């Protein structure tokens, strides 16, 4: 069997998730032994339109990008959204709440009219996505899990439970017990509780678990001193595309 041809593409992002792929230093030789990488701007010069698996980093923030995304979808058998920007729009979605005009002015000043932009969205808004590797940046182990699963022809095992699970298994002291707060209770695990293990709090960069308890989140964060506005800001940071991040009409969060 021929080695699968793998292609990397980037849209609106910092390209840090592709860097995470290159950070798989111990496994890189194994990866290039198992697949042929045909496009990877950060690592190689070659280019090709013939590939089986496309990893797409970045958010969909320009209507003119739709064509390029559709072209990738047509070339690839499997499309993998790589990182928070591609999966949920990531931090880029923050601009949607500011207003596009204000954001344009802030970034480009008087030259704002030279550039094209639209509200930031996950790439799923333009094309069908088969697998999502969440995170800002992606965890290396999850990238490897997806590559191995694709090679073996099976569904990758990606968690849909809160970061608390991994945090407890590492026996971290809970941030709430230190009087701080954390989004780990509603955030998708898979990062092995990266931030809480190194003294930070969880920002839910990997998205929200299915059926997360929004009202409990609002109540508990309020108990720890956050205003509704601050709770919304926590959800908007990485999860602005979800209804929960929309302004509540009556103080109740949307599901």
């Amino acid at each position, binding site marked *: 069997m021929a080695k699968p041809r793998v292609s990397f593409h980037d849209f609106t992002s910092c390209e840090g998730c592709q860097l995470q792929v290159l950070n798989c230093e111990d496994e890189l030789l194994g990866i290039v032994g198992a697949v042929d990488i045909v496009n990877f701007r950060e690592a190689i010069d070659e280019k090709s339109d013939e590939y089986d698996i496309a990893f797409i980093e970045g958010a969909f923030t320009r209507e003119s990008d739709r064509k390029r995304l559709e072209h990738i979808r047509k070339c690839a058998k499997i499309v993998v959204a790589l990182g928070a920007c591609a999966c949920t729009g990531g931090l880029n979605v923050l601009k949607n709440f500011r207003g596009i005009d204000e954001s344009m002015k802030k970034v480009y000043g008087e030259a704002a009219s030279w550039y094209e932009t639209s509200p930031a969205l996950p790439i799923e808004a333009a094309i069908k996505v088969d697998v999502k590797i969440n995170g800002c940046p992606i965890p290396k182990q999850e990238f490897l899990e997806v590559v191995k699963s694709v090679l073996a022809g099976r569904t990758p095992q990606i968690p849909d439970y*809160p970061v608390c699970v991994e945090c407890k298994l590492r026996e971290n002291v*809970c941030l709430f017990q230190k009087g701080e707060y954390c989004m780990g209770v509603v955030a998708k695990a898979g990062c092995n509780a990266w931030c809480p293990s190194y003294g930070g709090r969880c920002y839910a960069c990997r998205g929200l678990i299915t059926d997360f*308890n929004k009202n409990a989140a609002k109540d508990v964060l309020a108990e720890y001193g956050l205003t509704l506005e601050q709770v919304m800001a926590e959800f908007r940071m990485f999860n602005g595309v979800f209804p929960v991040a929309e302004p509540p009409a009556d103080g109740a969060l949307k599901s």
Partner: protein
Amino acid sequence: MLPQILPKSKFDEFVGSLSADNRVVAPMAKGPAFAFQEVQTPEDQAAIRMDYDLSILPPKKFLMPQRETLLSFGGRGPENVQPQVQAKPTVILGVQPMDLHAIATLDAAMAKDPADPYYQAKRAVTKIVGLNVAQYANDYQFMADMDTLDAPASGWDLFLTDLGDRWFVEVGSEAGQAMITKCAGFSPAKSDDHAAKVAFDKAKAAACSKRLPYDARYLPELLANSYDSLLWNAVARRCFSCGSCTNVCPTCYCFDVQDKLGLDAASGERVRSWDSCQLRVFAEVAGGENFREHADSRLRHRVFRKGKFILERTGKPGCVGCGRCSTHCVAGISILETFQQIADEAAAEI
């Protein structure tokens, strides 16, 4: 063997004698909390906190690690499978009475239908030095109700009670006796030592009052009566289904098994890790059916496991009253409070 006395000045020597041919793990501070950690250096030994109140994870983690490789495989077919049973001779130092009871529950659960070779291999080479407690660690504990304030009759090797300048050391097994004879610091307890130990336990019983409004023997039946109660939904409204309650529980033993492949897509490892009935995906089966799709049914299931099912299955308590689940619940859900509330639920139905 009759109880022994170990002067506190000889404690380091005692730990040193254990370290000679065992991995020693002991409670140490972790931020504002405590955790069982391996004693590897003299600094670690100095950091042992025999005055700890409650560890984040129970000592269960040494008998059934959070993540454990069960076997490795080099390809298809049984001839390519290599079992991986890991068992290091270990002394767990400072196991509190309720955690000794919890280990007895795990021992029973892992001994049958079928016996779990991974647990048993570790248990066989694990020696346990228990540690008496003088009082509750917090308001969530209710060991007096669950009858776990004192050490169980067996399942431990030594049991230490703090008598101020000395340890009162009870001997629970031949391995415990061997630990005593290996260290020169021990001498037989005298009458005033015995009296001090009796006074310690009396003070403990006085300090740790019962907190359930009923005798715990009625717990399984009270739970059965409350199965259709609105209580579960009311409590679950605050529940994140984050699984912290089960992950810190000393008697929870559910696990998940996954095959982790290598890049050759043929070799790899079979790994088991702690699972939690509180996670939405726990009861999901092929085809997408989920037997406990909503948080209330999952929460009720956990409380039933703790107060009824494990007891019925193993004959040992499913809840030892340690209060860890409630201590670590971000939403402040307390199993003690739930157990208290079901008494009135049942009364309301009559």
